[in-house]
């Protein structure tokens, strides 16, 4: 049972801390820092479902986040929907789209799949940049009226924050749930040796398409929430290739294939990046430092921080999944 797994309680504790810390003393600055950490964890843990669980390197993961943002912001500003239904609809719409894309490009393996995901990202970005209803390259603005149903901008941003924290918790619980499930076992088998897995009875085509689609859902929901909060959305911020790559860096840093690793990697990297950017002396070198760090991690601890912990304390494997 999932309830008996210590990590579940750690995740809930983490979410509670995220919710409580900035609320306590109305620390908006902390909230703004934490919302980016939460976003990093959402993106990383869902990416982990593809890379860590299934062994498929998705370079274009950010496309789910961006499309989710577009669908959600469109529903809110043009159709006048509320935030939560918009976000959930965006999640389903993007998941469905991912399922269709997935059935096509998941016939590819290894590096070819990785490249196809870049192709999908650029093609989608280019499509959106030309798509009139979504404002082409200019994108869309969220009018202040959209904040009204949530009690004005100040209230709306807090609501968005709590929703993002909830999505973060859901992402981690989803990862945890899949890991212990039969579905997850099938994915791990695919990761280790897809042909052998098929011969053992795993329907790899369907499994891959499903996980690709599932890994799109929560990032798309987060996309709606984040761009609603951002106030604007345009193709260059919605489909930033760099962010997609950073997702992979975060995952490697924490330890791919593990739930705790995706959270740890996402959180640490985002804090480091924020710190470097706002530190006057180091801000010019944040990329250099992040790059050197990545090189060191994959060279010295290819399993990431969690992999390193497993080696140090083998028993930790049972608690920190």
């Amino acid at each position, binding site marked *: 049972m999932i309830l008996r797994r210590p990590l579940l309680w750690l995740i809930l504790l983490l979410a509670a801390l995220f919710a409580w810390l900035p609320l306590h003393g109305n620390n908006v600055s902390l909230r703004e820092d934490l919302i980016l950490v939460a976003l990093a964890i959402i993106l990383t843990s869902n990416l982990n479902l593809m890379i860590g669980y299934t062994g498929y390197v998705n370079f274009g993961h950010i496309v789910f986040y961006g499309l989710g943002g577009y669908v959600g912001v469109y529903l809110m500003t043009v159709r006048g929907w509320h935030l939560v239904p918009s976000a959930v609809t965006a999640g389903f719409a993007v998941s469905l789209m991912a399922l269709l894309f997935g059935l096509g490009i998941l016939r590819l393996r290894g590096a070819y799949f990785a490249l196809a995901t870049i192709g999908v990202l650029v093609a989608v970005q280019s499509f959106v940049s030309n798509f009139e209803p979504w404002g082409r390259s200019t994108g869309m603005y969220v009018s202040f009226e959209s904040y009204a149903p949530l009690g004005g901008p100040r209230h709306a941003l807090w609501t968005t924050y709590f929703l993002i924290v909830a999505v973060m918790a859901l992402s981690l619980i989803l990862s945890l749930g899949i890991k*212990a*499930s*039969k579905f997850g*076992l*099938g994915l*791990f*088998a695919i*990761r*280790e*040796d897809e*042909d*052998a*897995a*098929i*011969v*053992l*009875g*795993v*329907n*790899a085509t369907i499994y891959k398409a499903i996980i690709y689609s599932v890994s799109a859902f929560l990032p798309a929901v987060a996309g709606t929430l984040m761009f609603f909060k951002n106030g604007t959305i345009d193709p260059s911020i919605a489909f930033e290739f760099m962010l997609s790559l950073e997702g992979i860096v975060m995952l490697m840093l924490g330890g791919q294939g593990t739930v705790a690793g995706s959270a740890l990697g996402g959180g640490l990297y985002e804090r480091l990046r924020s710190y470097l950017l706002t530190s006057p002396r180091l801000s010019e070198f944040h990329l250099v430092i992040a790059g050197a760090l990545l090189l060191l991690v994959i060279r010295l601890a290819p399993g990431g921080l969690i992999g390193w912990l497993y080696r140090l304390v083998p028993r930790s494997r049972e608690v920190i999944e």
Partner: protein
Amino acid sequence: MTALLEVQGISKRFGGLLAVGDVSFNLMEGEILGLIGPNGAGKTTLFNLVNGVYKSDTGSIIFSSKNITRSSPDQVVHLGLARTHQIVRPLNGMSVLENVTVGACFGREYQSRRTARITALEVLERVGLASRANSPASSLTLAGKKRLEVARALAARPKLLLLDEVLAGLNPTEIAQMIDLVRSIRDSGVSVFMIEHVMQAIMNLSDRIVVLNLGRKIAEAPPREVVQNPDVIVAYLGSPDILDKLRGSA
């Protein structure tokens, strides 16, 4: 006895090369059927056709009275036809137990993960790997990995097991143990179709033997008849009187 597997006129061509040509045979319930032939005779290709890795260009395959000619390997497993690989393919990043659990989870009974774990433990006990259940699969010896292949296939609760050279690369003691294992599998009611190069073993184990050469079936008979079949001798040794010639020159 009824036929569990009926193979009718199947072929596979790769480019200009005929790997398997118009092969037909039946496998009876409860039987151990051997498959032999020189290197490149198309034995593994035949296995791949039977379990759906390749799709046959012609003919049909009926398993347990279902037509599986166009089925994919995972569908075939659900019907109760499991196999092992000639070159072992353990899921290296997972433990021995997890490897076998995969077999049980996605096998004929499509067990839940919890039941599959219990099945897997039983099967490991049976193949003698219970003590290694929690070791990484990559840490096993070759003999251990061969057992793991068999265990994973067995965990699927198959009606028919395809064994692709499970004895190759093992030392005499390990071969003896594996032969006992195969017998016990058959005795538990699972039919076996096996490719083997170790002649003594396959002659001992098989009820009947199918012989392939250059993709075509050249014989199908009990072991004793097969060794005396002139076509088989030619296929293996080049010409019927080669043995005499060798003796003469020695």
